[in-house]
């Protein structure tokens, strides 16, 4: 299957009732498990940050040292100098429990998806861009169309364009590995076994700061992802990711 930007596909040829689902069952199930985990990780990660909304670079940092930057929010601990007269409720206990549980489920789900993606050819067919798509012209055409908030063609309901492909590849092969790595680099037990994982990042506080920024990167992806789905047709794209059926015609009517 080629990309629509360079190789238009006849919609009727692929969207018949006998056609294979737009997204395979494994992609659909892992997508929604990851969505749930991401939401849990985002909320609990935010709660954990609130107990000390200051960020540092290097090995150590605390209320007595100068932060790299601080978030302009109150904290859930009394001693943190935030400039606010009040202290938020401590939510760290359940937040940490849920954060690590969601992380485990996300990592195991991600491993399953990776194995499937390589074995089934999902990455090769659906995510790795075709050589012709990697030209600057093809790329800039697509970016320009995105910036004009153009609704994608029907064929694009069946295949990802080059910008989408690169965004998904960055999330899967760059941001997710980075967020797992920087998370583990904060664990005193994990780094006792693998000290290089934190040393190359510049220290434990650097790992925490990087973890925060990579998480923001993932959040940015999710926001753009949802906006693009709304532009492309929220109901048809969400239905495709739940049932597997793409069906663009009804959406247009």
């Amino acid at each position, binding site marked *: 299957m080629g990309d629509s930007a360079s190789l238009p596909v006849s919609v009727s040829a692929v969207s018949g009732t006998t056609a294979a689902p737009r997204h395979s069952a494994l992609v659909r199930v892992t997508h929604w498990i990851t969505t749930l985990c991401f939401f849990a990780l985002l909320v609990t990660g935010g709660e954990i940050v609130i107990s000390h909304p200051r960020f540092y670079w290097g090995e*150590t940092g605390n209320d007595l040292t100068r932060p790299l930057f601080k978030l302009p929010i109150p904290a859930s601990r009394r001693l943190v100098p935030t400039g606010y007269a009040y202290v938020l409720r401590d939510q760290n206990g359940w937040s940490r429990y849920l954060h690590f549980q969601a992380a485990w489920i996300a990592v195991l789900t991600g491993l399953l998806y990776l194995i499937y993606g390589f074995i089934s050819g999902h990455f090769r067919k659906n995510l790795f861009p075709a050589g012709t798509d990697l030209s600057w012209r093809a790329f800039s055409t697509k970016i320009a169309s995105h910036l004009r908030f153009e609704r994608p063609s029907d064929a694009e309901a069946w295949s990802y364009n080059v910008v989408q492909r690169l965004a998904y590849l960055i999330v899967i092969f760059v941001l997710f590995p980075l967020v797992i790595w920087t998370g583990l680099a904060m664990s005193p037990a994990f780094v006792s076994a693998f000290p290089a994982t934190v040393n190359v990042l510049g220290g434990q506080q650097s790992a925490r700061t990087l973890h925060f920024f990579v998480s923001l990167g993932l959040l940015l992806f999710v926001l753009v992802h949802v906006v693009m789905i709304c532009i492309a047709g929220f109901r048809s794209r969400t239905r495709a990711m739940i049932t597997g059926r793409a069906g663009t015609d009804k959406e247009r009517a």
Partner: protein
Amino acid sequence: MTKISRRKMIKAGLAATAGVAGLGVAARIARGYGLIPPDHGGIYGLGETLTYGSQRLLTRHSLAREFPRSQISKPPFANEIEPPTDEFKRLQAGGFADWRLTVTGMVARPGSFSLDQLKSYPSHSQITMLQCEEGWSYIAEWVGVPLSHVLDAVGVLPQAKYVVYFSWEPDTWDSIDMGDALHPQTLLTYGMNGDELPVGHGGPLRMRVPRQLGYKNVKFITHLTVTDNLKRFGKGLGSVSPEYGYAWYAGI
């Protein structure tokens, strides 16, 4: 059609049975190797068990990172402590000469140690990081007697699995498995940065478990109990932390 779905059902049933049986066997083996944390029940039990079990397999003999003297935080950050009681002030005025560490439970020779006795044992010093679950951290030099030395002195029985430690502060206690208890960097700390351990940092005696977060490093240690069963202590979750919603294992 019905034949296929029946075959499918039998297959699914067999797979499910095998899966449940496999999990049961895995749980038994994991328990045998001490890979199940005491707070494994409840909705977060899965994550806790995966974290504790996998980190135990990875970190059985690993050493916490140690740092050069130049990286010691000046001054170290002292978290809040309860205001000292009159009894504590009396002990402090006497230079903690009357401070006692009692050791009971699954030991051959239950005993009581003064600080001078503990200090007469070979001391160990380490420059390690103390990391709070909130996110802040500092590096300090800690001096103390390895917990393993005290455990040797009282003769831990072979069936022991955990060391429970109690603070002077009421309702403050925690526990570690024997892997951490016998770990060379686990110290009963009485010195810090070339001085006596300040009261603000848990002086005169603080448990130092550098491969776990700050809250496992309980201050004002007065009592140790060696056990093979954490169910007998508090609500049976291994420490007071899970009773407040915090994980027993804090290696992460």
